[in-house]
């Protein structure tokens, strides 16, 4: 018996003076102790605040052009400098947080809801439904994510909505697998049998028992998925398939600034940093969340 197990076992002894608390409260308590995760959460909250109050925070509009003032290095007036239209890069990054958050959350929402539903159906009904759904997921997984996204955006056309759909579709198989796995574990447990024996409808069983029990892994995957979605969208923008100008998407800013990389690296440095900080924060938080929600993985 290793020490970790030992201490856990000891704690688990019923006489131990422990309050009975919900696993979510426990997870939050454990998360609170995780400094890295808290830093991540702080950055994410900051980002959300930035997105909400972009108008108040940004000193300029995201498309306020001034060609004469183009490609200025950082200064007191333009702390991140200006781009090739003389637009304030700081303001564009501030407004860009809206785009990134939208892409991140909506794409993950699409992936999690569609994938979750498919996974739940596959796991709950098994047999044919399972077979068909999971084979389709295999097919989607056989195409590298970015290529799938590029093809989808090509067929739907560029623009924010379609980028979100494309990235979301790419994420479906991941969620489907997770939910299916949890459903398979939960499905045959006694409380589900019990619910079924008193004639509860399938839909109710899924909603009441199965979904709540597979929520933890979905939340972890979703947090890390938001990071992935933001990166994918930036990648799509980078090859010109993303958001339409003049929308201040960070990946598009990187792509547009690439031609000035040599003489005016500030045009690309700041959007690059913005992406990195946000992804870093989401990863920190996601890792912490995973440790908190899934003690088995805790190290």
């Amino acid at each position: 018996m290793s020490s970790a197990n030992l201490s856990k076992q000891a704690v688990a002894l019923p006489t131990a003076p422990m309050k009975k608390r919900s696993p979510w409260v426990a997870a939050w308590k454990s998360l609170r102790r995780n400094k890295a995760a808290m830093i991540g959460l702080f950055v994410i909250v900051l980002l959300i605040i930035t997105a909400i109050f972009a108008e108040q925070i940004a000193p300029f509009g995201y498309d306020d052009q001034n060609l004469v003032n183009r490609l200025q290095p950082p200064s007191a007036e333009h702390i991140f400098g200006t781009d090739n239209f003389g637009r304030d890069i700081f303001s564009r990054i501030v407004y860009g947080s809206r785009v990134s958050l939208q892409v991140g959350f909506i794409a993950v929402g699409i992936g999690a809801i569609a994938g979750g539903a498919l996974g739940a159906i596959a796991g709950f009904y098994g047999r044919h439904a399972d077979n068909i759904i999971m084979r389709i997921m295999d097919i989607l997984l056989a195409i590298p994510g970015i290529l799938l996204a590029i093809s989808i955006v090509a067929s739907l056309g560029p623009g924010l909505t379609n980028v979100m759909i494309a990235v979301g579709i790419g994420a479906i198989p991941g969620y489907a697998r997770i939910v299916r796995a949890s459903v398979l574990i939960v499905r045959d447990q006694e409380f589900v049998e019990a619910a079924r024996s008193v004639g509860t409808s399938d839909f109710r069983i899924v909603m009441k028992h199965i979904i709540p029990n597979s929520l933890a892994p979905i939340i972890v995957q979703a947090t890390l998925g938001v990071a992935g979605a933001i990166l994918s969208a930036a990648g799509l923008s980078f090859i010109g398939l993303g958001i339409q100008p003049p929308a201040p998407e960070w990946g598009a800013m990187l792509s547009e600034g690439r031609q000035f990389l040599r003489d005016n690296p500030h045009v690309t440095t700041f959007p690059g940093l913005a992406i990195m900080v946000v992804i870093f924060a989401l990863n920190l938080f996601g890792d912490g969340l995973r440790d908190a929600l899934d003690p088995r993985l805790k190290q």
Partner: protein
Amino acid sequence: MSAEKLLEIKDLCIHYITEDGTVKAVDGMNLEVGKGETLGLVGETGAGKTTTALGIMNLIPAPPGKILQGEVIFEGEDLLKKKAADIRKIRGNKISMIFQDPMTALNPVMTVGEQIMEVVQLHKKVSKAEAIKHTQDMLELVGIPGARWVDYPHQFSGGMKQRVVIAMALACDPTLLIADEPTTALDVTIQAQVLDLMKRLKDELNTSMIMITHDLGIVAEVCDKVAIMYAGNVVEYTNKENLYRTPRHPYTVGLFNSIPSPDSDEDRLKPIEGLMPDPTNLPSGCPFHPRCPNATEKCARVIPTPIEVTPGHFVKCLEYAPGGLH
């Protein structure tokens, strides 16, 4: 104590320091094992038996485990003061260990032969061919065809795996064998076979043994002396006869009362009230006092020391201390 001392544990303290608090797994423990003797280490889950065994091998995982103080004197030398390289020469060689769960004690991606050979080659200067020969002999010794040395653990049953573990533990003729609940994970019928095998081999090889168990039946069957552990402490320590005839510590008495006995008239067992205390938050005074039928207010205040009640029979209870319970 009749036999020559092989192992002596003095005032050993091992704590686990975790986020949830400090677990005093072993707290001021004293123990002796003589040459050729079998000592039974008995206690409930979490009493610190396994930690004691790991402490002897100096295998406490650190962090979170920490040996705070004490000595483990083996053949006259303190193992805790030895360098890592020196202690490795003892592990698996002079002192070897049989672990509780044979299912997980074997490396699943190595053949059993490789795993037995590993210990042979580590400690004996032999050629590869000799090592293989020795490995096969060891397997035969525990009743497994030598030819199966190329098989992987998953190809064996639980009982067979434990035999492999035993073969591995005995491969270098250890002077001290620590068996940590070697039969707990096995079916009852297999348990007897394995136990018999161990007893036989121990006698053949004249090995000393520490038998860790919570089963007083096993103690009766194989041990010479017995140490009863409770909450990181030895509460009673004597030879088997003394213990079975005159158990002194209230905990030991409680343990005996909770075993069904065929020649008893009572139709109800008397389990010990309550459960093991939270190891991060042990009660003051005697750790057993909250559950002790005889406890007094003094028990909550004073930490008892071992008292030699009769020669060779040590009990850690205020009842036997000068001044008694009050």
